[in-house]
């Protein structure tokens, strides 16, 4: 067992884990943050996307020990004071989900897209950037609409705060 320490959703966490523990297992099983999902377990589907030091990564393909000292953001850390994050609100408003399994990863990727590509996203950009997230229900249409609206809303609500995410 080896000790790992990191900051998850603003809180310092620490645990003794086996080296083979994946980041997604650490989040779900040690921290009980089960919003991050395991879909394919082969870095294809994107259900496990979290932010590692500000960048979207597939947490099924990162060792937890590689993240020692890092800052991790998960879907549970987006809402603040009981209010949904603008991207979450946009997914609700535009019905960007059906079964919801891919949604945490979609939203974490969407916030990352905004950080890299800005608040005014055309459909083509969103579809290309969603390359690494698979949805088996929606046909993506409403997800794309939700991300465009969420990106705009993030710009309107607090550009500085969300740019840092």
């Amino acid at each position, binding site marked *: 067992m080896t000790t790992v320490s990191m900051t998850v959703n603003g809180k310092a966490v620490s645990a003794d884990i086996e*080296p*083979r523990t994946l980041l997604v297992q650490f989040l779900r099983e040690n921290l009980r943050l089960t919003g991050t999902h395991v879909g394919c377990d082969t*870095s294809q589907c994107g259900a496990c996307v979290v932010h590692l030091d500000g*960048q*979207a990564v597939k947490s099924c393909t*990162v*060792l937890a020990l590689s993240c020692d000292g890092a800052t991790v953001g998960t879907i549970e850390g987006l809402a603040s004071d009981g209010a949904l994050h603008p991207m979450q609100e946009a997914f609700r408003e535009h019905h960007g989900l059906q079964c919801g399994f891919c949604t945490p990863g979609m939203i974490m*990727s969407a916030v990352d897209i905004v950080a890299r590509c800005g608040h005014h996203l055309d459909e083509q950009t969103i579809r290309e950037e969603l390359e*690494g997230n698979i949805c088996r229900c929606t046909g993506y249409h409403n997800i794309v609409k939700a991300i465009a609206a969420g990106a705009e809303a993030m710009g309107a609500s607090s550009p500085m705060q969300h740019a840092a995410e």
Partner: protein
Amino acid sequence: MYAFDYHRPDSLRKAASLAATVEDAKFLAGGHTLLPTMKQRLASPSALIDLNRVKELAGIELRGRTIVIGAMTRHASVEQSPEIQQALPALAELAHLIGDPQVRHRGTIGGSIANNDPAADYPAACVALGATIVTNKRKLAADEFFTGLFDTALEDGEIITKVVFPVASRAAYAKFRNPASRYALAGVFVAKRGSDIRVAVTGAGESGVFRLPEFEEALKKRFSPKSIEGLKVSPDGLIGDIHADPAYRAQLVAVMARRAVAKAAAR
């Protein structure tokens, strides 16, 4: 995943000394090939030496007419580097075509070329540009480095530290992606440096990256897609799998070569 020992050195020297002492260890870079391979039990090292803490291995530097990329530099950093976009846009474009955004945030150039997957993108750029692969022990020309399917000239415990790319006046990469995996079914990197013209193919060869001498000779006469219009690629030695048979890949290689030359000639 099965259990293994884990080491996290913070310097190249420590990484090398661990490699010399720890039995049956593998280096962990971005992990986007190694970890899935271990999950499937296709690789089972008893220890991992994680290079993510070795800061001296990451970074991009423009040095005269060369671009020096540290082995632990992520694909996303290459894709987004203003220096590379300016001096060698073909390389930034290649990095942009790897996997998906999340994979590009983790995957590294050193990991990619050390693995030498026959469908990986970087080997084509290394060979076409005549890159030098620098390790903690020596310097290797790309032509000598890639020795076969998932095989390189690297010795046990040898660590790639950086890749030095000469800047080419005209270069471009054309890739036909597998629509599911985004790996290359055929990818062709063309580079012209003075009178030296190289055409390197990835995704298609059973032994990994290879050059097309006939195409190179034709392009030396005139650097234009017209020069290679009638040229065919032999399906001998090309990969045949559920995605594409050798004849189809041969056809794709010729088409990708023409597209890459058209793009490079327009630069």
